[in-house]
């Protein structure tokens, strides 16, 4: 469902962030992308979200070329993808409910759907009791679960988690990974980038290893080996 073909990203000044990336991700997969800082993991994620345009090559989602999308088509495409960031990026002046409702409002859901689905998705991440809290009143792990709930509420085809456990302690890391596994078990494609060896080894799923902007290894059931 997601294809990267001969992808290259070169920044002004000559720095090459991605080079010769060829990768296919199928529906329902859980793919971990691993590598040191600067390996190109985040740039690859930005390509999927069309935050960055490739210098060469293409990124396709089903039959549409992501790097050519503009305006409403781009907005519609992004509604099919849920994103979880390492630094949470919650809307600070909105409550947990409003943060999740915002994503639903953005995709044109009715008030009734919002009132029904937000508590349900908070149940999934076990955070219903914090529904009217503001982000500042939550712990790191709780914030990350809100972000996952926000990413999931529109039932995306792909969930992208960019270093979701980077700021969390081992207990919260384990919780978040369990949530991601549960989401994948329910049929959503999950793309996870991480530095965490324990997480990768525990998952026993596909691992794509990157180094200096290139794909070093792509293993169906991989381990963290850099």
């Amino acid at each position, binding site marked *: 469902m997601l294809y990267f073909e001969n992808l290259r990203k070169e920044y002004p000044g000559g720095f090459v962030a991605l080079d010769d990336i060829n990768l296919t991700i199928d529906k329902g997969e859980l793919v971990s992308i691993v590598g040191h800082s600067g390996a190109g993991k985040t740039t690859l994620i930005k390509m999927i979200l069309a*935050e960055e345009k490739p210098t060469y090559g293409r990124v396709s989602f089903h039959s549409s070329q992501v790097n050519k999308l503009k305006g409403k088509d781009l*907005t519609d495409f992004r509604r099919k993808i849920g994103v979880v960031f390492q630094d949470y*990026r919650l*809307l*600070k*002046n909105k409550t947990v409910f409003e943060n999740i409702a*915002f994503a639903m*409002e*953005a995709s*044109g859901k009715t008030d009734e759907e919002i009132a029904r689905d937000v508590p349900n998705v908070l149940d999934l991440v076990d955070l219903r009791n914090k529904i009217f809290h503001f982000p500042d009143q939550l712990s790191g792990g709780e914030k990350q679960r809100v972000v996952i709930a926000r990413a999931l509420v529109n039932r995306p085809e792909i969930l992208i988690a960019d270093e979701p456990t980077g700021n969390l302690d081992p207990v919260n890391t384990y919780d978040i990974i369990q949530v991601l596994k549960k989401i994948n078990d329910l049929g959503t494609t999950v793309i996870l980038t991480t530095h965490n060896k324990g997480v990768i080894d525990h998952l026993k799923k596909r691992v794509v290893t990157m180094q200096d902007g290139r794909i070093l290894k792509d293993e169906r059931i991989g381990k963290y080996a850099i």
Partner: protein
Amino acid sequence: MKKKIISTKRVLKSGFVSFLRNKTVSLSSIGILTTTLIIIGVFFFFRGIFDYSLNQVRNKVDIKIYFKLDAEDSQILDIKNKIKTLPEVQSIELVTAEQSLTDFQEKHSNDPVTLQALAELDTNPFGAMLTVFAKDTNSYDYISNTLSSESDFLGESYSAIDKINYFELKPTIDRLNNMIRLFNSIGYWITLLFLVISSLIIFNTIRLSIFIYKEEIAVMKLVGASNMHIRGPFLVESSIYAVISSLLAMIFFFPTTFYLAKNTIDFFSGLDIFQYYLQNFFVLFLLLLIISLLLATFSSLLAIRRYLKI
């Protein structure tokens, strides 16, 4: 249609909630906006005082036509009627010979020597007089030329005129007209300068308040929000700043003009600045509201635009 109503309702609600929750940003933006509007308002009052003073001076300028003692009433009326037909003329006042005499007697009622001297004369020494007011001080030149001996405008009745005083006052009136032109031109440039400075202050205030949300705008884009869905609440918030700031500026002028009016009424040759404020309340409020709404919403649009390019 229903979707649009829901979307508008959400944008409005989100704007109001954001305004209430971001107290520090809201208060500082309103503070700066109000100060800027007060400066614009002060300028409005200055213009008012300036125009009033100019009108006071303008009203003191006129053309006086003095008639000979033997001028006949029919000649005087003929001249009056002819001058009335000139489109440049605002009004015309006739003081008859009898009225001139009565005015003189009243003026010197405490001066028996003068009154006695007057009584010794067999005839009325005063002639009739016409005072002509023009719509514009620039027209006096044209009117006086029309009334002059070279022109046939007054016809035979011209022989009844003793003198026209405009020609004595001409240098003063010319100087006055030049001054009015200069002040108007300076006023125009100062207004423009004030508007540019105010626009920059308001633009930067709004830009800073939106800059704080740069990261959040990026997140909104990445969760699939449309540009209008992101922009809307910021526009609502800026409009709230504009409305509240305009009201605060108007409230500020109430006690200020009330206090100033008492102390400045003589200085401004009779202009009551508090009355001026009351009479122009809605005009000034609308002016401040329109300026602040336009500048605030336009600044919002401009400031958000760069963050929406994701």
